[in-house]
């Protein structure tokens, strides 16, 4: 009798635990939440980003003054060989296509990195092997520039890959994203809003 009671209690406990953990409508198979998280000392995700990181501080005819915001990330998975940083403006039309405005593309960021400092140099390559292809206007970071009064949404994404990319500074965003496909271990995003 005691064994039966014990077994019943165990079963009820197991069922109770399973019920508590039973997810609501499940995500598609093989989908899992990201393990990485990205933060910045210079802005909060969802909030407005300050002028010094944007085209508002640039003066036409002079080298850009806008600097990339500081970014750091946690939760990098084992096996990460490199990172890719992509920043783009969701609100921009490029013809009638599904493209948008690229503001920053950097790949082969070392897999040991846990941050990008404020003001990453706007050069095609960095000493640590990072490659920054050209966006519309420059190599490296190009500050937000949406005209008033509508806030645009600038998504910063850091992608952890299981390999480096065999591409050069002439690669386009499409080239990089095609090369990343199948190598994404994890990622993290932040969203900044801005208008002049």
């Amino acid at each position: 009798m005691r064994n039966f009671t014990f077994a019943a209690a165990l079963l009820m406990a197991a069922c109770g635990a399973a019920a508590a953990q039973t997810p609501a409508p499940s995500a598609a198979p093989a989908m899992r939440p990201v393990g990485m998280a990205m933060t910045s000392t210079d802005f909060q995700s969802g909030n407005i980003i300050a002028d010094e990181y944007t085209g508002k501080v640039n003066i036409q005819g002079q080298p850009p003054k806008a600097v990339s915001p500081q970014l750091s990330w946690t939760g990098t998975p084992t096996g990460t060989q490199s990172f890719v940083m992509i920043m783009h403006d969701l609100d921009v039309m490029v013809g009638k296509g599904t493209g948008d405005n690229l503001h920053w593309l950097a790949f082969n960021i070392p897999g040991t990195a846990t941050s990008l400092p404020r003001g990453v140099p706007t050069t095609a390559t960095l000493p640590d092997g990072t490659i920054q292809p050209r966006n519309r206007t420059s190599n490296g970071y190009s500050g937000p520039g949406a005209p008033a009064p509508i806030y645009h949404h600038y998504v910063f994404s850091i992608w952890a890959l299981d390999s480096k990319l065999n591409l050069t500074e002439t690669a386009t965003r499409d080239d990089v994203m095609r090369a990343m496909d199948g190598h994404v271990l994890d990622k993290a995003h932040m969203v900044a809003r801005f208008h002049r």
Partner: protein
Amino acid sequence: MRRFSFAVAILAAACGFAQAQNPAAPAAPRPPALVVTSTAFEDGGVIPDKYTQKASPTAPSIPLSWVNAPAGTQSFVLMLHDLDVVSNRSMTDSLHWLAWNIPATATSMPEGVPNTPTLTDGTVQIAHRNTHGFVGPGYPGPNYHHYTVQLIALDSKLDLPSTATREQVMAAVNGKILGKGVLSGRFHR
């Protein structure tokens, strides 16, 4: 000869003036951009529990409205997706709602749109997760996930059934987009 020189000088001056004005600028002022909002949360803000799996597995859809549909709009496409999900080492993320052929005359999606393959106004809602239409945010936490609403104005309707895939819909809208509006939300349980 003098007349020719004068004409050349005028032309050179005109060209110089145009260059200084930035030749890439459009000739006419742009119409105001498509803007999508919700009474439920502010742009960049947190989505209330009511519209999420924290409240119910069948939580009602987020109310949305929009203004400044571009001239020539024939339909809208609405997408809600969670940026912070990975799958199979690929570039994709997690879809929570995809609807197309929203009528060009529509200026809103009310709260609690039925989870049916089509709506009475002709809107088609993608089949996914054993349902159609809106599936509430559900990420347990502790970090916030980014749930992004994207409204796209098209110059035509799409000839796709509700069993079409997200990739098929995005391929179909490519080349038809007249305007975009974005609303950014965050959530964890």
